[in-house]
């Protein structure tokens, strides 16, 4: 039995015994193109009455609701990368004074991730259901969906879906979609709050916690789009159902974005703990021998090819490798690609994604990218790798947000995994593979915009 389900496959899933936990969950009935309309969505997943039989509004202790209890029992954690327990976040917002705002974060600045734009484009009602349930549980009358401005199809889908839902029982009084600048850190919580409050989409230094004071100084629930999609299904099917998939410490299913030398790169739903090879099989197999895999995106960690056979996709299995799934990125690198050239190219892009607020990030990431480019070209000084280690220690924990730390993590892990390639390049310069097409995904020409983090809300 395959433990992953393709977004792209046209053949129906093989029949399963009813005892076997079923995938897909989130991607059930996903249309071949376009968005799933409200009536289709309700036909697939059922109506929103599920927790209406125990009205969430009638909560006892402040901050408690049947849905929050159910989410706590499910063990759901945020899917934006940080993995914070969702019930704890919901409870904090519900317990704060004043009417709350709920924000669905589909900014997805990570270029190696496509899951949030895919969800909002094709299954907007699943995400909005989760938003509606969560809004009710925390006492929010406003639901804002933040989508990356470059994902125009997703913005359009969400806007259409919101129109379809007006007048739907239990829908928040106000729902809207907002375009977020196409920038790596624009989806960071404090950057998103700043953007929604009319400021630039840049991180702040010690901002108030959003659950106390976020959008228009109201208690604000911000969670990743996929997290809301899981809430929509937990509300309907319960926590025990949710835990039928995954591992005890990381229950449930997850959306992963798979890129690199496979027949069908794209977004896949797996259960936590599924093997990497089952994911690759679901994507039609590899088209080149694998050199390494990057887990968790451009703030993530490389795992060398020798460890990929038998690798399980859950954080408990990835921790011994120093890795985690983060926001669900699995970027494969084939033997035909040059890791040094790829890492230098991504490092230069990461340096360009600094919002230029903090000196160590501005200077350090630029110096790191330059040193990597010199190594790739074979013109670096003899101690270039020590210089990278030194620069890494100068950058770590010295920014207002996690961007510099993530970039240093990505570079340090590459240096370790591809040590022989780096020393080879440092001595002999470019290799044959350097000239090949780039394999790690980066946005096309996005980094050329002068201040891409500027404020550009939709009218």
């Amino acid at each position, binding site marked *: 039995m395959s433990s992953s389900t393709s977004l792209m496959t046209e053949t129906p899933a093989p029949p399963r015994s009813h005892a076997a936990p079923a995938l897909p969950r989130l991607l059930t009935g996903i249309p071949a193109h376009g968005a799933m309309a409200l009536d289709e969505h309700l036909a697939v997943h059922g109506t929103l009455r599920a927790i209406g039989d125990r009205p969430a509004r009638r909560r006892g202790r402040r901050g408690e609701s049947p849905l929050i209890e159910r989410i706590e029992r499910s063990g759901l954690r945020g899917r934006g990368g940080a993995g914070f327990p969702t019930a704890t976040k919901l409870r904090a917002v519900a317990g704060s004074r004043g009417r709350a705002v709920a924000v669905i974060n589909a900014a997805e600045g990570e270029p190696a991730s496509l899951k949030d734009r895919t969800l909002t484009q094709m299954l907007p009602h699943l995400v909005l259901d989760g938003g509606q349930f969560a809004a009710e549980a925390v006492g929010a009358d406003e639901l804002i969906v933040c989508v990356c401005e470059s994902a125009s199809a997703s913005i359009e889908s969400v806007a259409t879906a919101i129109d379809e839902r007006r007048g739907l029982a239990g829908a928040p009084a106000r729902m809207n979609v907002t375009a977020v600048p196409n920038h790596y850190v624009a989806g960071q919580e404090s950057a998103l709050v700043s953007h929604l409050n009319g400021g630039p989409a840049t991180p702040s*230094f010690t901002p108030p916690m959003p659950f106390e004071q976020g959008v228009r100084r109201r208690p604000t629930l911000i969670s990743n789009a996929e997290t809301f999609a899981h809430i929509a299904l937990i509300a309907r099917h319960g926590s025990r159902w949710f835990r039928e998939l995954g591992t005890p410490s990381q229950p449930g299913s997850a959306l992963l974005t798979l890129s690199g030398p496979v027949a069908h790169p794209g977004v896949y739903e797996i259960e936590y703990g599924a093997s990497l090879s089952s994911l690759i099989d679901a994507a039609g197999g590899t088209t080149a021998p694998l050199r390494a895999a990057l887990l968790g995106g451009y703030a993530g960690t490389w795992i060398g090819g020798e460890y990929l056979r038998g690798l399980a996709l859950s954080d408990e299995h990835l921790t011994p490798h120093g890795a985690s799934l983060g926001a669900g990125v699995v970027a494969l690198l084939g033997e035909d690609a040059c890791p040094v050239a790829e890492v230098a190219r991504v490092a230069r892009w990461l340096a360009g994604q600094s919002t230029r*607020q903090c*000196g*160590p990030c501005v*200077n350090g990431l630029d110096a790191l990218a330059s040193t990597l480019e010199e190594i790739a070209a074979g013109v670096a000084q003899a101690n270039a790798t020590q210089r990278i280690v030194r620069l890494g220690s*100068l950058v770590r924990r*010295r*920014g*207002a947000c996690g961007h510099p730390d993530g970039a240093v993590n990505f570079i340090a892990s590459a240096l370790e995994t591809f040590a022989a390639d780096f020393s080879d390049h440092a001595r002999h310069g470019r290799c044959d593979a350097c000239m090949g097409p780039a394999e790690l995904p980066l946005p096309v020409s996005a980094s050329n915009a002068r201040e891409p983090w500027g404020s550009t809300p939709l009218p």
Partner: protein
Amino acid sequence: MSHRLRVNPIACEAHGMCAELLPERITLDEWGYPMIDGEPLAPSLLDHARRAAQACPTFALLVERERGRG
């Protein structure tokens, strides 16, 4: 009650006053930005630290008081 140094990296513009006034605890990186560790301040340095914080042209150096363990 102990005190710790903290830098607001967004406000900091690398004037370097802090390293002049508190060399015991602050050095500058190769671009002129202050490097601090998270260790508590010795009581004997507290006045110097406060003076350094007041001298910062962008008020980016913070002397933070913390309760508990310290």
